[in-house]
């Protein structure tokens, strides 16, 4: 049995506290009124002399605004009458107030989707009757323990953002399909049947139920198999894995539409859910590798050998390229077609202030793994794999951040204490939940019929 070292426990709790302070700072310093915004702009003018440019920037190009239509912004920028000015300031205020919410949302989704994708990887191993991986099953099961607390936090956030009117993260909630209304949004006329509050919330609950339910079933059967005399539980888990994989793909598809793509609700891409999935799956495999290497260094996984870690490294390499493939597919089709309603998504990201992150994550998620993880000798060095794993994780966090932030916070890049605080908070929580779960059961799933094959597995 693995014991949660007090050092790691203190570390994770310290992360949670530090993160909470960072998040609190974000909410505390967020502007409260339009006067604060005026002051900020005044300050920006004094220091950079770019206020007019800034105003035009945030007003004009915002792909998603609280009131949706582009015409209103044109009015704002053209006439500059007192009413429109105030209107624009309110819009900027909402975006600034979104910032701490957005930071928290990105971090909580990042860790939840990692845990869910670990379950997907686990189900893949079971559905494929893989012989190499059963020694890692308990590690994967431990990581999926985060699905329950993580998804409850996300659900609470979604409920607070929608029916609680806690923030303006999801602009489509504040639109109307009535052409005479002030907040009329032409795009919602065709999307309203899907993007409406009751449907959105019910669907969110269904996704979470699928993930939590199958996690519970599969882990229960896996533990029951330990002391079983037949392989009944193992066979059951095979069936559950197959069903889960099918249900997961559907749930993930609509989850990506509802939770992420709906932030930019004027924009659409059918590849988006797969792109999100590939990003989170490679992060999940990286997390499995990192946790495995940590536990191995503590001597908790005597049956895991270099070949298992090497295989995880190969998956990290392979899925990094898979991610690039989907990222590029989505980008190139819209870049080439050059239709305004599509490229609006890439304007702030590729050409705007998010460009360093957008290009940077491409280097971290593609160029870096390709060059570093291609060589077998490099994948065999745990410290080397750990460093590349951390770079890949950081890269995919940035990926998720760049998906969310331009639509909620606006076209000006803000990255600082609230964002880092949110990462630290959820990282601490993730570590605490995962390593606590790992202490609950033996890390050796001895009942698995493939265990012998996995123990003697060697690549070279």
């Amino acid at each position, binding site marked *: 049995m693995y014991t949660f070292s007090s050092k790691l426990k203190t570390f994770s709790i310290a992360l949670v506290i530090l993160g909470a302070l960072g998040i609190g700072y974000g909410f505390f310093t967020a502007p409260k009124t339009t006067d604060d915004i005026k002051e900020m702009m005044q300050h920006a003018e004094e220091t950079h002399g770019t206020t007019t440019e800034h105003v035009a920037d945030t007003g004009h190009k915002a792909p998603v605004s609280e009131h949706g239509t582009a015409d209103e912004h044109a009015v704002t920028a053209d006439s500059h009458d007192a009413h429109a000015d105030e209107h624009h300031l309110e819009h900027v205020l909402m975006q600034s107030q979104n910032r701490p919410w957005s930071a928290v949302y990105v971090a909580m989704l990042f860790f939840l989707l990692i845990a869910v994708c670990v379950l997907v990887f686990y189900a893949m191993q079971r559905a494929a009757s893989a012989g190499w991986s059963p020694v890692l099953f308990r590690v994967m099961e431990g990581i999926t323990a985060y699905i329950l607390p993580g998804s409850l936090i996300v659900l609470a956030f979604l409920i607070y953002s929608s029916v609680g009117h806690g923030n303006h993260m999801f602009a489509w909630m504040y639109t109307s399909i009535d052409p005479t209304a002030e907040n009329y949004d032409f795009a919602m006329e065709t999307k309203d049947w899907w993007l409406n509050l009751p449907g959105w919330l019910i669907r969110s609950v269904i996704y979470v139920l699928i993930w939590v339910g199958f996690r519970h079933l599969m882990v229960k059967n896996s533990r029951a198999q330990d002391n079983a005399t037949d392989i009944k539980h193992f066979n059951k888990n095979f069936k559950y894995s197959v069903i889960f994989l099918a249900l997961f793909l559907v749930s993930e598809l609509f989850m990506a539409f509802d939770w992420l793509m709906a932030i930019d609700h004027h924009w659409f891409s059918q590849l988006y859910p797969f792109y999100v999935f590939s990003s989170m799956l490679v992060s999940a495999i990286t997390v499995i590798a990192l946790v495995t290497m940590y536990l191995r260094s503590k001597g908790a996984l005597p049956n895991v050998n270099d070949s298992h870690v090497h295989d995880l490294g190969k998956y990290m390499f392979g899925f990094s390229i898979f991610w690039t493939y989907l990222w*590029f597919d989505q*980008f*190139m089709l819209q*870049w*080439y*077609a*050059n239709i305004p309603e599509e490229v609006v998504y890439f304007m702030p990201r590729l050409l705007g202030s998010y460009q360093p992150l957008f290009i940077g994550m491409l280097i971290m998620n593609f160029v870096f793994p390709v060059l570093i993880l*291609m060589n*077998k000798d490099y994948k065999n060095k745990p410290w080397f794999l750990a460093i590349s794993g951390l770079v890949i994780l950081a890269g995919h966090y940035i990926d998720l951040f760049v998906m969310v932030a331009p639509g909620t916070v606006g076209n000006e890049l803000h990255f600082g204490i609230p964002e880092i605080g949110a990462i630290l908070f959820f990282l601490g929580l993730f570590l605490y939940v995962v390593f606590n779960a790992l202490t609950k059961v033996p890390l050796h799933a001895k009942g698995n019929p493939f265990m012998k094959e996995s123990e003697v597995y060697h690549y*070279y």
Partner: protein
Amino acid sequence: MSSKVIHALYDDDDVLMTAVKEVRAAHHHIEEVYTPFPVHGLDRAMGLAPTKIAITSFIYGITGLCFSIWFLNLIMIQDWPQNIGGKPSFSFAENMPAFVPVMFEMTVFFAAHLMVITFYMRSKIWPFQTASNPDPRTTDDKFLMEIAVDGNESELTSLLEKTGAIEITVKENH
């Protein structure tokens, strides 16, 4: 070089693997092993040097990438620039995303084909080459181990019999 070789025939790859290890442990030199299909781990058991084909493949891939960049720049930018869908081809950098699929395919094409050709050359398989395996049964379901004999014929024969060879023949080397 010895003038005689001994041929031991096996009918199972697991038996062959153990036999190879035992013969190596007894410090005999295995000249070659003929198998109807690739046996996983056999090269390691025989003590062969690790293959360098992965490195050649990488170099071929890089070659393909460079070739495709030169090729696309020549045909799409320099020689015959066209206005495709409102994207005029006057600069390689600005049109690069459109070329990525071609660059990718060329990289794969070069790496795969040249690697296979390299493998053929390295294995001495080229047109009009006659088969060099000593026993045609190794193309069906038997495995053959060839060991150099150096005045220790009887000792080797008894060792090979112990390892489970189904047929042992001594041949003059040619």
